[in-house]
């Protein structure tokens, strides 16, 4: 089974996100980078599928040359091949990103190594566009589901599960297909030392896709104004319980 996992390099943020002085980006001077959490799970899921069914996991990212770090992270976990769609660092919208991914999928198909399954995260942690997977599926003419938290497949058809409003939704369709997954589908493994060293030696395939402008254009980023509260301390330890009960009563949440 040939699986392509699309991952995105995003900053690791702490309790506060700092925006650069020009208001255009997240200040990453002291932050590291990682792939989006959903995508970590996508990589893990792909590796598990190939461990069971055979085949190969390719991992792809669209980003600056430094995004090779995230590809190597995936290689260390067990991905077998990595593709960097190198950009000059500017932000790519969902439509341009879709085109770049589709081009890669077609390249592989033309080479006789077409993918059976494309896995993406449900949404990127940073831009949160919620649409690239679906757009890619449309372009390829493949079925797609998003937000998936369980995948079963025999290599021919897929049963994909997710939760929605307290119910489980089950989708069944044939491969090839696109699935976007959510954190919780699995607990990703950690890279082993030998894995990390293999990843370091691996050669990363590189292509340079063409950027294109889109209808949705960022003007600037800002941190929402939130009131920093200083909590009213009701007391210490169990002694505070009467006061706490009083507040709960006031809020009208007591039985």
């Amino acid at each position, binding site marked *: 089974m040939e699986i392509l996992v699309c991952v995105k390099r995003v900053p690791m943020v*702490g309790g506060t996100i700092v925006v650069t002085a020009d208001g255009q980006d997240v200040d990453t001077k002291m932050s590291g*980078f990682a792939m989006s959490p959903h995508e970590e799970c996508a990589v893990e899921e792909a590796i598990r599928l190939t461990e069971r069914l055979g085949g190969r996991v390719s991992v792809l990212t669209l980003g600056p040359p430094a995004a090779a770090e995230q590809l190597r*992270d995936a290689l260390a976990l067990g991905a077998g091949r990595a593709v960097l769609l190198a950009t000059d660092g500017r932000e790519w919208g969902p439509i341009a990103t879709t085109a770049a991914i589709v081009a890669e999928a077609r390249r592989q198909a033309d080479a006789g190594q077409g993918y059976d399954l494309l896995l993406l995260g449900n949404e990127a942690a940073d831009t949160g566009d919620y649409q690239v997977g679906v757009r890619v599926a449309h372009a390829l003419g493949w079925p797609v589901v998003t937000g998936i938290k369980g995948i079963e497949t025999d290599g021919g058809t897929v049963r994909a599960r997710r939760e929605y409003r307290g119910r489980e939704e089950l989708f069944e369709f044939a491969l090839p297909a696109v699935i976007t997954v959510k954190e919780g589908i699995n607990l990703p493994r950690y890279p*082993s030392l*030998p894995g990390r060293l293999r990843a370091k030696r691996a050669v990363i395939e590189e292509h340079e896709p063409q950027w294109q402008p889109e209808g949705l254009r960022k003007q600037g980023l800002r941190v929402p104004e939130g009131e920093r509260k200083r909590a009213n301390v009701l007391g210490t330890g169990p002694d505070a319980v009467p006061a706490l009960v009083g507040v709960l009563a006031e809020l009208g949440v007591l039985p």
Partner: protein
Amino acid sequence: MNDTPARASAVIIGAGIVGNSLACHLARLGWRDLVLVDKGPMPNPGGSTGHASNFIFPIEYSKMMMELTRDSTEQYEGLGVFTRSGGIEVARTEERMAELRRRCSAARAWGIPAQQVSPGEVRKLVPYLDEAVILGGAHFPTVGVVDSLRAGTLMREEAEGSGALRVLAGAEVLGIEVDESGPRRVRAVRTDQGEIATDTCVVACGVWSPRVAAMAGARLPLTPIVHQMISVGPVPLFAGTTGEIAYPIVRDVDTNMYERQHGGDMEVGSYAHRPMIVSPGDIPSIAESALSPTELPFTADDFDPQLAQALELMPELLGDERVGIRYAINGLISMTPDGHPLLGETPEVKGLWSAAASWIKEGPGCGRVVAEWMTGQVPAVDVHEADIARFYPSQRTAAHVQARAREGFNKMYGIVHPAEQWESGRPVRVSPFYHRERELGAVFFETAGWERPHWYACNEVLLDRYAGRLMPREAEWEARWWSPVINAEHLAMRDSGGLVDLSAFAVFDITGPAALATMQSLAVAQLDVAPGRVVYTSLLDERGGFKADLTVMRLGASHFRVVTGGATGMAEKKWFTDHLPADGTAALADLTSAWTTLGLWGPRARQIMQAVSDDDFSHSGFPFGSCREVEAAGITVLASRISYVGELGWELYVPMEQGARLWDALWDAGRPHGLVPVGMGVYGTTGRLEKGYRAFGNELTADYNLAEAGMMRPRVKEHPFAGKDAYLTQREDPPAAVLCTLTVDDHRSARGELRYMLGGEPILSAGGERLVDALGRPSYVTSAGSGPSTGKHLLMAYLPAGDARPGARLGVEYFGERYPVTVAVAGATPLFDPQNERIRS
């Protein structure tokens, strides 16, 4: 939640291991109304303590660091948070094998259990280590791990429980208010939860310390630097072990790494990667941090070479594909230009104390020492090498601190020669003779930022003349940072004369109506002498230990000039400043950068002086121990007849800009007399050792006293002085140890090489037992070097009173081997020219 107290006896900033320890010890010493502030949450506010690997190797070459570590370990044991695991340093190279022998000898000097072990023995202790990779190891069975967060919590809670301490967590210090009406002094600490009035503030906030101290206008020469660490697991082998650690910690020192079990995981840490300096201003806030402000994102590329090396050492355990890298950080730690902590009151601001740059292994000890210091006691450990006041301004610049931190980082586990010189941040301070010296082929060593010639290549021409008396060194280790030219210079000086650049001296003038009283209250020696006298004296702490060792010229009724070593000059300046009368009737002026000094010594010194000056330099006209202004080479020179090398001669003080003229005049006048330039190799070692002259920091430390050093004067002056009561008692009691000069009887090693000790080695009984005096102090070599005029390699050491007999046969351990030595002198009598005829000729 505004329960910020309005005032405090002291505000401690930083609730890491040091701040908590300090609060606890201050409370134990009786201070009340203490406040501990940290912007982070308890018990882990997010500093370096929170991500420390928490293991302690007791072995250090520095006695101070060893003692701080030992005290800290005892404190951790007392708190019940120490787990002994044992530790092993493994060697991959022959050079490292030798180094491990040296380390075991150092351990022996301090009484630390240590043993050389074979690869097979290492494998028995650490079954997952591939013995084929190593040549051997050194086993330190008392190595252990601590729970530093718990230790901090227990100490903090003890102080809180005794009612002495209030803790403000989540309170950020915004400013330290300083009273500037007189000498700058702490007035208050301003936090985002209110202002606290206080006259004492301690900066104990690790990597943030420079930022916080700067709020009061003080500079702490410290830089945050990255130390990479990963934690891998779950390790199947560890699943069956109980507790945090069951296997010894391994230091793979040749790769600058360590591997340490932590529960089910193995932590692998590295000092091998490129030095990554972080400016204190760039440390992210707690809110901005993904983990904590001092756990920066891991940069995997930097660590990859180490992965391969770790894998090589522990292939089965770390090569297990099921074992994953579960945690990986670029942890921030503190580094200083010389690797020592920053302790004590800052020289810039009264009441602003530093307790920074202390790691887990010495944290509780540093807390205790600073608490003792703050409460007016003499600290239990002599920490003058960690005194925050030790730095000159040029050593506190960001550029210097970062350059030295960068250079020192990869030496953390390095094989560092005792005389090893820094490469970075040089040259900074150069004398007026610097260019002359370079032309003469000077090999410069650095002290206190000064470039000082250690020997001169131009003197290689003397090697033939003195062949046979040069005590050449066969072993590369001792030949490193040394040259036989030093010994040739020594002999040439004794034969004719030597010219010595002494520009690194620190020079202070104490003036004013109370100058005499101030000097008298600090110095052991009588300073109420006639103007024109030079007095060599010690300064003591209240326990009678050595605080300084210097010379004082009385230039006038109310005018004293203090001349002291460059290395300790700044700390001593603070000591004098702190003891000036509050009413301003005595003042200190630092003339270090105004005056330069040349030393001229040797049998021809008088003729040479007479050739450049019409003044009277005869023995009666310019007696020993006197000083006066003379005219020489057309300039005014302050000449002082004393000697640290045991020869006739003078120290010549001139304003900096006139130094070169004096050098040239003496050079021209001296050459016909056989004058040679002489470096610090002679002045600091060979010359003084032959004369039994003691050096501050080597022999003269806070642990020993005048009686033991053999420096008691016949009478004690009437005037009270610091340490006088202790000194009077010491004079009465028989000394527990006596400072002796020893000679090495046979230098031949088992391999047939001639070996020469360099200092720090343990002195053993004839039977090979460690020598420890009645006060528990071990005997070790305080200074070592050639005595070319005596034909002997000389060692100084304090010996237990019973062993301090001339002719006593003892041993010294060096690189794991024992060499026979004989006590040549017990006490201060010079080995060379015992009657001091040369000085008084």
